[in-house]
């Protein structure tokens, strides 16, 4: 574990940003080379959504990993911002490529379709997190308020996973696996929180 921590200290944060945009560049490359199959629009939209969810889950894993002794907290902001980037691109793909700017139909979807409503809610909760991701914002809010605000990410991740589960037909394993991962990662927090309260009152 110490070796891993020592190793991670030598990784610059910018390397994480760089690695994080590689999947995006890969999608761009596949798009330009007709590598996305007969329906590139859906492929782009789905890949971006899945990457957004993956970065959300990765971000949620950082705190429990620290309890286990692996400290990756330096990278958390990068992971969170990458999640926001992918979900934003996912939304942009929906608006432009998938819906083809049919505003009326989008407006109808936004009030009628639960998976869209929940996806939008998940996206909306990420906006204040992205906006307050700068050092200046952290200073302005103070660590306590900042931490409280950033618990919104629980809503984003749960929302994202439920959104995925709601939009598939039947019961394939991937969305269930993502939801399970989010529930476990949130459950770990609850469990630890509960133990600490017991410890305090004892």
């Amino acid at each position, binding site marked *: 574990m110490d070796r891993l921590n020592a190793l991670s200290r030598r990784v610059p944060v910018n390397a994480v940003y760089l690695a994080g945009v590689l999947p995006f560049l890969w999608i761009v490359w596949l*798009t330009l080379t007709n590598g996305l*199959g*007969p*329906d*590139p*629009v*859906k492929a782009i939209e789905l890949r971006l959504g899945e990457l957004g969810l993956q970065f959300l889950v990765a971000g949620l894993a950082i705190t429990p990993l620290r309890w286990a002794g692996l400290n990756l907290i330096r990278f958390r902001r990068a992971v969170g911002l990458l999640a926001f980037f992918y979900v934003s691109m996912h939304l942009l793909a929906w608006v*432009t*490529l*998938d*819906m*083809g*700017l*049919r505003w009326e*139909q989008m407006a*109808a*979807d936004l009030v*009628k*379709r*639960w*998976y869209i409503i929940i996806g939008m809610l998940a996206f909306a909760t990420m906006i204040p997190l992205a906006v307050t991701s700068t050092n200046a914002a952290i200073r302005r809010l103070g660590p306590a308020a900042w931490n409280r605000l950033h618990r919104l990410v629980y809503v984003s991740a749960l929302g994202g996973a439920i959104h995925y589960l*709601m*939009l598939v*037909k*039947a*019961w*394939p394993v991937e969305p269930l696996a993502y939801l399970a991962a989010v529930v476990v990662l949130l459950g770990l927090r609850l469990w630890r929180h509960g133990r600490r309260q017991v410890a305090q009152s004892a």
Partner: protein
Amino acid sequence: MNKAPLRWSDVTPRHLWLNRRAFIAGAGAAAVAGPAVAGLTYSPSAYSTSEEPNSLEEITSYNNFYEFGTGKEDPSRNAGALTTDPWSIVIDGLVDRPGSYDLADVLKDQPLEERIYRFRCVEAWSMIIPWIGFQLSGLLNRVGVQPGAKYVAFETLVRPEEMPGQQSPILDWPYREGLRLDEAMNPLTILATGLYGEVLPNQNGAPIRLVVPWKYGFKSIKSIVRISLVAEEPPTTWNMLQPSEYGFYANVNPTVDHPRWSQASERRIGAGLFGGRQDTLMFNGYEEEVASLYSGMDLAKFY
């Protein structure tokens, strides 16, 4: 000659079975050259649309066929192992001549036509597909529909060894579909055995599938092994799974939304990155031919 059991390919003209490799090699050529070099003998049909068909590549690599997996590319990857010869279809229920029919027998005397149809998936995408097939009514008339029959029920093959998707209970196998008898007898309703002038690729429902162009794609059941004439509305797979989302009728209808997908518009596969959407047509554009089947019915209730 040894005494191997007779297969439908043995008694079927060569052009009806062409081995898979020849098919794949010839497909590209057929796609551009049209009927002149095609493997199947068929005539054109006045029911064909004049819209430009999707490419063979698109039609054969973007499929919903959960027997081979839930991904759109899974069927093209996994369907190769499916044995489609020998193949027989049980025709039973309220018919004069029930029995297990060899595929060659099913096809006998049914005139093949090319039907270039719009194909609209409930997921709000669409294609134009040049099917080769014959009218279901031709087969039903041949086996003799008894007066009590009101519906036709269909079943897909169950063979988990060759259909890996069936190894998990994603759907309640066998896949089941059904039509009202008048829908089944409508001249637009065909059993397809080919595509782009060649035998049907496995991922598209070989060796024989239903095509009902005014209904969402999931009604057009693939790799059929059973056709039953029945008195009551038969259970159908997606309706069993989620009755609030998938009705028995499943007519393409831009004014009746699916809870997940607006059905007002559709994305045409092959339209390109910025192809956008086009308006979905009532009964997928076949209103003239089929609207009378539903006169007086509340289509929002019988969705």
